């Protein structure tokens, strides 16, 4: 469904992505793992069109994405919940969610999704009118995920969705991801919580300083001793 | 006193400009040749180079543009007719954006780099004030100021102000208020800046000189700020003072706004305003908003704006600057040019600075738009005679009709 071929990207002098090739098959969950600064976020940024791809190309459903504008990429069905939440601090919770559904037109359908999101995160429903900037860290994270869900995307990009969430909710999050996936959404998941990510993913890639160093079915990676030692930790 | 025409080397020493080494470098050579005319900077057998400075860009360009056009139109006309004594007039124009520092630079550039013969029609009080010292030090003739600053009458022998200053006009207004309007109570709405404040000072001074200080109470001196759009307070206050004459000492836009407000509240008394508003384009702008009360309006005038007198100006403007309005500023520029040229004619071939200044000291110019322009040694009053016109309706249009003779205070 999504293919990256030999993608290179820079931040000024920093060569952040060095020839990334990966693919996300339709209907699957694919996870990207790697240390801090490995380039996971940069891959998502490149897919969404906010990081310029200098070389190589990205295709989505056989169509080129490189040099398509970010808002058109969303319109094609790729949405992300960005790193660092990036909610709109001065909008209310509800308005933030409505923005998530910006590209959709069917009012009734939007309403159903909204109910669903509120179902996943009852806390958001409680705080419907609260200014998003005053939410607690975890609440903002829920909002960021919920906002992405509102778009009802074909491909959902999640950048560290469990960041700052309490253990109880983390568990929920992974359930929710699976549930969304079952309802037909393909998912590209970036996570630090590697065990859990690999537990729900079909396929995994491991990055190191801008390059893919391991790839394989999730359960294989999970049991790979080298991978375990270097990235998963023992805690 | 006609020796002035045959200036020799010695005479040129009296020229203040001699101190300035570059203007008379070839003194000695000239002395050898007997009756050779000593030219100052910028003057030659075939041309006279002069400079002017004024605002050409920014919010005040509406003053400088027609002003320069009026001046240039006159010079174009003169040049087309063969120049003055065969000398073409070259005008170098500088934009100072109405800023003193740029004005100083412009004057320096004219005096030291272009080495012009004279400054003509330097426009704008701040620029004039900032460069007065330089001009005085150099001794270069400076004819006509687009400024009503009263201090210029005492600036020095090489300065020739023409336009009546606002204080003087104010005094004359006071006199007319007594003589023509028999006013027993006056209210003044004035623009709160150099123009209006000087005008108000003049009115107060004039009334005092006439022993009539009591007709204008301090509380009836009503300021408005340049750019104001709401004149309710001023008009309400003026109305409640119940005067028999209202003097509006303001420029076009503000005056028009005040007239509209007066029209709105139906405040029907005679009004007198400054010569700055004595032009047709002011009427065109102000009359549609105040068609009823505008016929109560009288303007001061220092120029003879009868059709016959204006014809050369109108013709020249139509010919050279068809898209620039003919208004009080155009006329001012025109008069500046007229006055300078009158001085050149008077000086004949004696185009040293001393020669020109001396000629100006004997000037009595009456053919121009202004009734009479004359100077004598030590006297730099400029025009001192003004008349009142009244706005009257003629068919669908409003025009000025001369009401009095030209009088001095």
């Amino acid at each position: 469904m999504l293919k990256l071929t030999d993608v290179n990207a820079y931040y000024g002098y920093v060569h952040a992505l060095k020839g990334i090739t990966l693919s996300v098959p339709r209907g699957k969950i694919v996870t990207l793992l790697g240390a801090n600064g490995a380039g996971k976020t940069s891959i998502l940024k490149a897919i969404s069109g906010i990081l310029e791809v200098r070389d190589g190309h990205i295709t989505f459903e056989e169509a080129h994405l490189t040099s398509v504008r970010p808002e058109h990429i969303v319109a094609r069905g790729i949405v992300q919940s960005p790193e660092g939440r990036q909610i709109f601090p001065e909008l209310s919770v509800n308005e933030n969610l409505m923005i998530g559904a910006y590209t959709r037109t069917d009012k009734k359908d939007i309403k159903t999704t909204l109910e669903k999101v509120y179902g996943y995160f009852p806390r958001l429903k409680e705080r419907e009118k609260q200014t998003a900037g005053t939410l607690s860290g975890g609440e903002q994270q829920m909002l960021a995920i919920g906002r992405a869900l509102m778009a009802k995307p074909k491909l959902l990009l999640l950048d560290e969705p469990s960041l700052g969430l309490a253990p109880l909710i983390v568990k929920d999050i992974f359930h929710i991801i699976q549930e969304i996936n079952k309802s037909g959404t393909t998912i590209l998941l970036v996570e630090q919580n590697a065990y859990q990510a690999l537990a729900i993913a079909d396929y995994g890639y491991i990055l190191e300083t801008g390059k893919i160093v391991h790839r394989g079915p999730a359960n294989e990676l999970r049991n790979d001793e080298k991978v375990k030692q270097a990235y998963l930790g023992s805690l | 006193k006609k020796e002035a025409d045959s200036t020799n080397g010695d005479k040129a020493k009296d020229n203040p400009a001699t101190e300035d080494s570059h203007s008379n470098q070839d003194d000695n050579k000239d002395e050898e040749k007997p009756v050779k005319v000593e030219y100052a900077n910028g003057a030659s057998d075939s041309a006279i180079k002069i400079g002017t400075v004024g605002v050409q860009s920014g919010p005040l360009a509406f003053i400088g543009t027609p002003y320069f056009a009026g001046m240039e139109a006159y010079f174009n006309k003169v040049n087309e007719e063969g120049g003055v004594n065969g000398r073409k007039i070259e005008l170098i124009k500088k934009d100072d954006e109405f800023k003193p520092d740029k004005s100083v630079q412009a004057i320096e550039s004219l005096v030291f780099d272009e080495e012009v013969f004279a400054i003509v029609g330097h426009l704008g009080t701040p620029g004039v004030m900032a460069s007065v010292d330089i001009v005085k030090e150099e001794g270069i003739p400076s004819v006509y100021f687009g400024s009503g600053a009263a201090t210029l009458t005492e600036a020095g022998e090489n300065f020739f102000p023409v336009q009546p200053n606002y204080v003087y006009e104010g005094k004359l207004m006071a006199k007319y208020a007594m003589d023509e309007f028999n006013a027993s109570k006056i209210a003044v709405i004035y623009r709160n800046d150099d123009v209006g404040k000087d005008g108000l000072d003049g009115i107060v001074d004039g009334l005092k000189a006439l022993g009539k200080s009591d007709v204008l109470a301090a509380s009836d001196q009503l300021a408005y700020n340049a750019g104001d759009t709401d004149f309710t307070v001023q008009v309400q206050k003026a109305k409640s003072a119940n005067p028999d004459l209202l003097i509006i000492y303001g420029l076009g836009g503000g005056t028009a706004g005040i007239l509209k407000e007066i029209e709105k509240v139906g405040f029907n008394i005679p009004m007198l305003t400054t010569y700055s508003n004595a032009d047709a384009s002011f009427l065109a702008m102000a009359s549609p908003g105040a068609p009823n009360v505008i016929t109560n309006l009288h303007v001061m005038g220092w120029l003879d704006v009868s059709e016959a007198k204006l014809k050369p100006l109108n013709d020249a403007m139509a010919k050279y600057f068809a898209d620039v309005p003919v208004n009080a500023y155009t006329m001012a520029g025109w008069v500046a040019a007229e006055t300078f040229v009158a001085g050149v004619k008077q000086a004949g071939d004696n185009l040293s600075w001393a020669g020109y200044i001396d000629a100006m000291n004997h000037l009595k110019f009456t053919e121009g738009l202004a009734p009479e322009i004359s100077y004598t040694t030590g006297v730099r009053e400029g025009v001192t005679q003004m008349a009142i016109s009244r706005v009257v309706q003629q068919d669908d249009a409003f025009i000025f009709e001369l009401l009095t003779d030209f009088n001095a205070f």
Partner: protein
Amino acid sequence: MKSILQVDNLSMSFGGLKAVDRLSFSVETGSIYGLIGPNGAGKTTVFNCISRFYKPDNGVMTFCPDQQTYNLMDYKVHEVITIGLARTFQNVELIKTMTVLENLMMGMHSQLKCGILMQGFHLPSVWREEKMAKKKAMDILDFLGLKGIEHQLAASQPYGIQKLIELGRTLIANPKLIILDEPAAGMNGAETEALAKLIKKIRDQYGVTILLVEHDMGLVMEVCEKICVISFGKKIAEGTPEAIQDDPAVQEAYLGKEDEVHA
């Protein structure tokens, strides 16, 4: 042992919402103390009260480093660091346009004593001070294992490194108590392990007390000697990691009941 921080009856509400509700706890000098609880429980709010960003509605907060006793309410935000209390932020707050080194030197701000004019004229005392600050910053970078990136922009560092820089910035200020808001967020398992070691090392080597908020139970259980659990602004449990882990109330509100936290 004497407690370095004593919070009594702290309350803070936003509109109708009670974010912190009559909360009391105390942190022993030299310990590593954990504050945990569900999202929106009020942990960050407590930190903001302690570091004086918020003015609590009610309550007393006493800070007792060494022999002195300070009532925190008497101090303004920027003064708190001068009495030995430094913090990090939940959403990293580094100075983006500064280099890593300069960011660390910011932590020295209140220790540098030269006046404005002295700085403008660059008197010798100024450059001595600056040199000293630079050296200290380099030492800390070394300690954190960050040497080599000192002249890079802080903003271009990956999230995890930024968290470390922020930690370094508190360390350089010679604090007696550091409060850390989710230091492990955004780190992977291996990095979290390293962080756990680092936190202990900081406590031991620098002799500071550490109060932290964290959702990564691995880290919390590993480093904290005592833990306070809050929910809806109220304390629901306090004790050793083991006790907390087994507390049914905590399991229900926070950890989840059925299985272990991690696989």
